[in-house]
């Protein structure tokens, strides 16, 4: 199951071949960077170096790509990990509660949130956040990671800078996950063994938390794994909106200035992270659901 997901790199192969097709790039940097060689040769060279852990140098900054990614990646990870936590901590309970109180105002609210959270463009939500809370009410900083001139270790300042990006990045995931959690919980609540649990006089609380949730939350492991793909894509946009100095923003800037080694490096790292997340997801599923292991 894990191996099926492994061939992530052939795509990078195609992308890498295609990316050097840009005529502008060929003209500008052909000679200096060995770009006058045929594309397959260039690609193979790039791949050969990649295999030895050498991501090449930035065209623009003349710094090793790996160094640059190394300095931007932690910022993206902070954002991503916090968003993932917020997504799960808010999304799952919302979905379970909605299923528990089916048809109630809360249930309706979660459904509206599910639809709205799916439909709202993340960058627009970020812009509204900045417009309303930062520009008009001046409650939060408009962007960046910390206020210039402030102490590096000013935790409150750092947290204030995190609120907007994390909320924006989590929104779609919360909508998605709460919807999913609701469906799964409802599914399990309709099972015979839940009826049995109720029939033997168990408290509703125990029925929900002991008998239902353990089974309902199994498929959620998959959903959480998929959320990571979401976050990796969303990071590019959100980092741009909030001027967050992360990997997504770096890739974007590099892409605009045709600094291909950086773009390629970021895509390789991001895909590797995604594959890693998928592997963890599949392994975790096997751990929480022993039936899967035999398959």
């Amino acid at each position, binding site marked *: 199951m894990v191996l099926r997901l492994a061939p992530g790199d052939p*795509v990078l192969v195609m992308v890498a071949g295609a990316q050097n097709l840009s005529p502008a790039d060929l003209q500008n940097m052909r000679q200096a960077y060995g770009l006058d060689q045929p594309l397959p040769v260039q690609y193979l060279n790039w791949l050969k170096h990649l295999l030895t852990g050498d991501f090449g140098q930035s065209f623009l900054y003349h710094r090793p790509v790996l160094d640059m990614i190394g300095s931007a990646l932690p910022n993206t990870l902070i954002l991503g990990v916090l968003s993932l936590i917020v997504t799960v901590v808010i999304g799952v309970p919302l979905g379970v509660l909605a299923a528990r109180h089916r048809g109630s105002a809360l249930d309706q609210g979660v459904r509206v949130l599910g*639809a709205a959270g*799916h439909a709202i*463009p993340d960058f627009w939500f970020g*812009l509204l956040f900045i417009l309303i809370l930062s520009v008009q009410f001046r409650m939060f900083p408009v962007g960046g990671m910390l206020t210039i001139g402030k102490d590096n270790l000013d935790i409150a300042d750092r947290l204030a800078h995190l609120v907007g990006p994390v909320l924006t990045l989590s929104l779609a995931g919360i909508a998605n996950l709460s919807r999913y959690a609701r469906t799964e919980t409802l599914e399990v609540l309709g099972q015979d063994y839940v009826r049995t649990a109720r029939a033997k006089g168990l408290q509703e609380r125990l029925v929900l938390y002991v008998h239902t949730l353990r089974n309902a939350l199994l498929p959620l492991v998959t959903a959480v794994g998929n959320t990571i793909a979401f976050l990796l894509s969303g990071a590019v946009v959100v980092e741009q909106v909030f001027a967050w100095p992360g990997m997504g923003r770096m890739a974007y800037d590099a892409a605009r200035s045709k600094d291909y080694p950086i773009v390629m490096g970021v895509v390789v790292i991001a895909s590797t992270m995604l594959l890693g997340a998928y592997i963890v997801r599949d392994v975790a599923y096997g751990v929480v659901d022993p039936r899967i292991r035999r398959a």
Partner: protein
Amino acid sequence: MESSIRASDAHKLRSTRGLWRTALARLQRDHVTLGAISVLLIMVALAVAADVLSVNLFHYRETQQDLLDSYTPPTLSTPAFWLGSDNLGRSEIVRLLYGARVSLAVGSGAALINLTIGLALGLLAGYSRGWADDLVQFVVNTLLSVPTIPLLLIVSVLFAPGPVALVVILGLVRWPNATLFARGQTLSLGEREFIIAGRAAGASTLRIVLKHVLPNVLPFMIVLTAIDVGTLILVESALSYLGLGIAPPTPSWGNMLTTATQDLSRGPWLVWAPGGAIFLTVLCLYLVGDGLRDALDPRLSRSA
């Protein structure tokens, strides 16, 4: 033998026709979905009528500038400035109408490509199984392991696409989901009695796939497509917002928001209209998809 084939065919025909008819009946009682459909129809009508409206009602073209009127707040007195004007004094409402054209066209065009590729490969993989299935699954899983936006980032920068190229690119990047879905549906249909009966009766593979499998997969693919159009509009607007999709001066909801960010404090109204338009469109498409699915398969109902 002869009669049993006909019976199974007739049964299937009846069930498809019945499927659509009952679905329609259910839809008529679903006010949310009907409302969403109406909103979408109005939007399409406005987008189609953009030329007529801008000339006759607003007296303003979509790229027409008037620097003296830059950052005019929304006002009822001049139709062209109902939604205010942007940094170059362009009419926000006229640009919104033309932006609707771009978003709706790009979204539905790319979704159509998704649907076509997804359906073709999904049917092939799901029905034939074997090496064709392995190959399709391999490509699908490979593509799915690269995060979408970074991938599009590269492609967009490379090709600096116009609207048509953007449709093709979005279509080509996002088909794996549709393929997986069609494959899953086909796979489960392949074990059903009427398919096995058809095979036993000696019907050709092509006939079975086109006449028996396709009609049963199609309704659900249409539902998927409705939601997909919305997702694609989101992706297109995000790319355009980043300056990698539809390039100015052609207005798109995404690049109108880029304009809005140039000075948030001078033109806050510029943030509301394009984003609201994206939100409303995607929301309606999502509700329609949801409603159609409920109507087609009540077991999956939202309230069930």
